[in-house]
């Protein structure tokens, strides 16, 4: 069946399910007019993203960064404390993460601190084995797992000594962001620490989708945390 314009756009954007995408790929290969249509769509997309890309590198005007900065910490702590009593786990760091995310965007330009280091053996084994679901009082906790723009599996972790975000590549767990870990002592305050909020914000910025759920985590562990 000949694709509709909507289907063809969805095909060019990689939005179709595999079966239909495969069918259309065959049609596109055989039909220069369809191939041209797909190329036009992708050209426009490339043109538009190139047109707007420079904005990302411009300094953020100070009136915008000022709008974000002053209120974050104090108010958020109160909000987080209140929320801790009634909402499920994710929301414990939701409010601070929002402000921290906006704040962090100013200081690190939306990218976490790059570090050339890799996780040591002890940390690597935690990152390899420990799942978010079913964690108890482990000294280092995994906050969440996600996939980043480079299609790596990444995990945010937090412990008394060290916290950060590590992404799995061919060499090991590369540390992409580091916190000081000090916010992580004492059970009740565990998830509400500002350090954790900053990590969650950094994770939010790096992630290309939602955090992995328990099943996805198990599967990723099964695959040695290597994508594909």
């Amino acid at each position, binding site marked *: 069946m000949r694709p509709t*314009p909507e289907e063809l756009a969805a095909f060019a*954007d990689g*939005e179709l399910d595999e079966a239909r995408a495969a069918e259309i790929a065959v049609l596109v290969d055989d039909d220069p007019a369809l191939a041209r249509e797909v190329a036009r769509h992708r050209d426009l997309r490339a043109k538009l993203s190139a*047109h707007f890309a420079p904005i990302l590198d411009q300094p953020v005007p100070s009136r*915008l960064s000022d709008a974000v900065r002053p209120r974050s910490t104090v108010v*958020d702590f109160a909000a987080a404390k209140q929320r801790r009593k009634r909402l499920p786990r994710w929301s414990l760091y939701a409010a601070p993460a929002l402000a921290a995310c906006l704040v962090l965007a100013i200081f690190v330009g939306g990218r976490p601190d790059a570090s050339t280091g890799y996780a040591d053996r002890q940390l690597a084994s935690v990152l390899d084995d420990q799942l978010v679901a079913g964690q108890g009082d482990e000294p280092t906790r995994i906050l969440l797992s996600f996939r980043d723009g480079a299609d790596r599996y990444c995990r945010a972790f937090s412990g008394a000594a060290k916290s950060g975000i590590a992404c799995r590549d061919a060499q090991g767990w590369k540390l992409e962001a580091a916190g000081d870990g000090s916010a992580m002592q004492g059970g009740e305050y565990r998830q509400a620490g500002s350090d954790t909020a900053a990590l969650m914000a950094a994770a939010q910025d790096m992630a290309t989708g939602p955090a992995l759920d328990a099943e996805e985590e198990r599967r990723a562990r099964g695959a040695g945390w290597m994508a594909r």
Partner: protein
Amino acid sequence: MLPRLRRFAIGLTGNGADGDDLCQMTIERALGNRDKWRGGSRLDSWVYRIMRNIRIDEARAGQRRLQTFVDEEAGGSVGAMGAQEATVELSDIDAALARLPDEQREAVVLVMVEGYSYREAAEIVGCPTGTMNSRLVRGRDALLAMLEQEA
């Protein structure tokens, strides 16, 4: 996130000064409403939704408020599109985008500039995924017609 928020705002409004005004209002509203955010939905989608809702409110109010802000701030902030070398060529795209109906421009910017999936873009806008898909196609066709005519 802030640079991306600016990009979206500038994409929606068509120029740097309006975009930054929109961005500022969005940040203020997002911080004021941050207890309404539920983790689990992406933070950026949530903030984008706030932004496009403000944009709609402003459009309904005849953009008077945005206009006032711009007048006051004139010269104070450098427009994103202003000082670039390729201004002439690039402004074709701005002009073409500006001529699209709001909902098509929004669809084009969310998917083709911001890189959201159709489903995510539809969630931000609050419409069915299929509607997002067809707005995108109509917006794309109109843009191509304008741009190819000029070329």
